[in-house]
């Protein structure tokens, strides 16, 4: 049996990139939600949670409308990068990003909120700016659950199907990720390929989840620990 490894390679690349972006974006959103009071905080919180509850087709449709060739954002993208976003592997990254960021924001927010406020008070009292407080105190104290959240986000990016197929399509050798390839293989009766990819992707997910669980214990300096 000739196995095309491209979907697996593409999925890993898409998931890695999406996780990196989701971690940056997610940490910022989580910190904002955990530490700041501002108008529209609830709306932002709800908007961040939305992708967790909406059907992937709905999200995919939204993104097609917002990022399509006719939309302003789509035009800006095309102007900058010289080609459209939809039906490229970069679109798969966007899809994975929408799939994984909410999860990361939720976990990171919980991690930030579990850090004892006493340490933040102490840092401010010792002359730390908000930036130094974040990088030197809050983030290091919450790093374990955040690593765990990033691992989960990676696993989730790996498995996205609905948004990916709507936004990036199913172009073998260009935008076909593992989950799409499995669907394709089942549809075309290629049971052996489907089984192989299913086994590999399940194995990878299992390893990542085990890693995430290992990292999950209460963060350093959590509220309980500091008493």
């Amino acid at each position: 049996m000739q196995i095309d490894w491209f979907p697996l390679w593409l999925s890993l690349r898409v998931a890695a990139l999406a996780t990196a972006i989701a971690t940056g974006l997610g940490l910022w959103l989580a910190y904002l939600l955990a530490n700041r009071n501002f108008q529209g905080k609830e709306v932002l919180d709800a908007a961040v949670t939305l992708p967790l509850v909406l059907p992937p087709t709905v999200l995919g449709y939204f993104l097609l409308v917002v990022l399509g060739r006719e939309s302003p954002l789509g035009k800006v993208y095309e102007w900058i990068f010289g080609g459209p976003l939809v039906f490229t592997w970069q679109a798969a990254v966007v899809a994975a990003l929408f799939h994984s960021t909410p999860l990361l924001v939720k976990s990171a927010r919980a991690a930030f909120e579990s850090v004892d406020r006493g340490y933040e008070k102490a840092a401010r009292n010792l002359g730390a700016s908000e930036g130094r407080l974040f990088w030197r105190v809050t983030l290091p104290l919450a790093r374990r659950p955040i690593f765990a959240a990033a691992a989960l986000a990676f696993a989730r990016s790996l498995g996205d199907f609905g948004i990916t197929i709507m936004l990036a399509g199913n172009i073998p050798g260009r935008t076909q990720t593992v989950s799409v390839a499995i669907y394709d293989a089942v549809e075309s009766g290629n049971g052996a390929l489907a089984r192989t990819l299913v086994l590999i992707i399940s194995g990878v997910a299992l390893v990542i989840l085990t890693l995430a669980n290992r990292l999950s214990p209460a963060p350093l300096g959590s509220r309980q620990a500091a008493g």
Partner: protein
Amino acid sequence: MILARIRKRFPAGPDSTGFALDIEFQATAGVTVLFGSSGAGKTLTLDCIAGFVRPDEGRILLDDEILFDAATEVHVPPRARHCGYVFQNYALFPHMTLRKNLEFAAERRPRLERHKQVTRMLEQFHLTEVAGRRPHELSGGQKQRCSIARALIGAPKLLLLDEPARGLDAPLRAELYTVLRQVRADFGTPILLVTHDLDECFELGDEMLVLREGRLVQSGTPRKVLEQPASVEVARLLGSFNLLAAEILALDPGRNVSLVRVGEFELTGPYFPGRLLGDRIWLCVRPEVLAALPRNGKPGPNQIPAQLMRVVEKPQSVRLEFSGDLAVDLSRPEYERQRQNKEWLIEFPPQALRAL
């Protein structure tokens, strides 16, 4: 010198009663103790000074710098206030070594100077050997010294201590007092210390501010406050007084005497300025100035018969608790001499009586 006038109101919520802090005080060099029961607003006062809580009204001046002024909306952020804060649980960063904890506090200085200063502080607080350890690898005393060193390393203009001795056993407490006395001598930083422990006020306090329900009810040296509590509430807060409801029967300023009725008995006391005949007062007497005697026949002048309810052993003395909420502290030999007494008399030295 710190000069503070702070008003902060927390409205009552569905699961909390409201609270209002309304105090004005000034503290100069040395140790000023904020004394009061829990919920009196002591820690809130520290948090307002450190900038963690923004008062509704008032003004806070540290030396000649305005930290907060409601009228002109000045509210200096905590990081720029130069107030060292020693937290109740120390709040040493658990992911940093001791040295890193101190360096974090000195980060504004150039690297070489910072290194020198951290080394000097570690030496001064006997922490050099454990400088590479993290907080969870330290003893309670080391953590305590580190948190004080960390608060002092930025050369603050004021040091705030929030119940530093809470939950410490006796040896650690003694160690803390030694360290703080050393800090007072070596650094000259004015210290504002929160406590609800009267012994601590006497150990460390040059001045004492008594807080009750968000208000300042008395200030002065600890000795003066203990000897002359300003009100029944303060006396109750200090916790070591006999308080007896009494009525004034006679007053004679010329001979400096008065006659008061306590229950069915009459006692002679000093003249109470500003009181009138028939006034109802609280007589306030400390347990260690009362005498307990065996009862043989009729009570003499200023003696009241009482029934012994309980004997409480204390490290330095024995406290006898009598009917009518009267307590008398006797020295151990004195108690041993009298322990066979069947019936008791309590004698009130006239000059020891105070009216509140």
